[in-house]
């Protein structure tokens, strides 16, 4: 066993270890690690968060990684994972689970804009505390 390990290592130019076997195992073994939150756009949220709730979460962010945006048809929030320090302030009060801890312990991006995630929370008028 040692001879095969040594031979493989020498021929491939690498030190060979059996750990970790694959990425799924890695993520499962480190599921308790908290690195960067993510926005969950698919989860059914009851009650639906109001704009006041979302603004309160955004105000808690010390680096402005979480921010509220609006357009003609409604409003939503964006999370800049490149600015998030994982302070947990937006996750704890968020009973609607719009922001949750991400499971990706090996997160990276080749493009800066790829780190910005957005989710539309409400179509219609952009008014404080009002939802259509």
């Amino acid at each position, binding site marked *: 066993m040692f001879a095969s390990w040594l031979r493989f290592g020498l021929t491939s130019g*690498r030190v060979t270890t059996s750990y*970790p076997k694959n990425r799924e195992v890695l993520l499962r073994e480190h599921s308790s690690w908290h690195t960067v939150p993510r926005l969950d756009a698919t989860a059914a949220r009851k009650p639906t968060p109001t704009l006041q709730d979302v603004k309160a979460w955004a105000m808690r962010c010390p680096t*402005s990684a979480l921010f509220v945006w609006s357009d003609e048809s409604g409003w939503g929030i964006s999370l800049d994972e*490149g600015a998030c320090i994982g302070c947990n302030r937006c996750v704890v009060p968020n009973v609607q689970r719009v922001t949750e801890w991400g499971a990706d312990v*090996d*997160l*990276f991006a080749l493009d*800066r804009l790829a780190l910005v995630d957005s989710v539309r929370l409400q179509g219609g008028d952009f008014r404080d505390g009002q939802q259509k």
Partner: protein
Amino acid sequence: MDNKSDWNELDAEKQAASRLRRIFGKSLHVRHIDVGSCNACESEVLALSNPYYNFHRLGLFFTASPRQADVLLVTGAMTPTMKPILMETYEAMPKPRLVVAAGVCAIHGGVFANSRQFAGPVESVIPVDAFIPGCPPTPYALINGILAAVNGREGVTRDA
């Protein structure tokens, strides 16, 4: 995010290793520079070379000199004092050269973004090939980001 590679899978690892050998020779040397970090990122970078993460198995090594480096790993919120030093380090590296910005401070500034002593993100000074978020990023993310930077520059030539 859908741009993550399964670097732990053997096929992907072999492909990354073969690309790495073709572009950079038999190994990839990383020059780490701290441009104003709190040392949280440094503790994670240091963990790369321990037996648990063991990034040497992929042919990655740290080097002390930018003259021998292929990858510039930048951590920390860049201060005005470190800005010209970072540029000199980048200029001292032989081509082709890759830059990886690791940690929120290097990408955005983090809690120091509004500080008078923050000179801007690394991307504002030198071109960045991979961004690794996190405060601090995990060693897995650092390895993944470095390999992704190599994969992203597949068509690179020695003049790049």
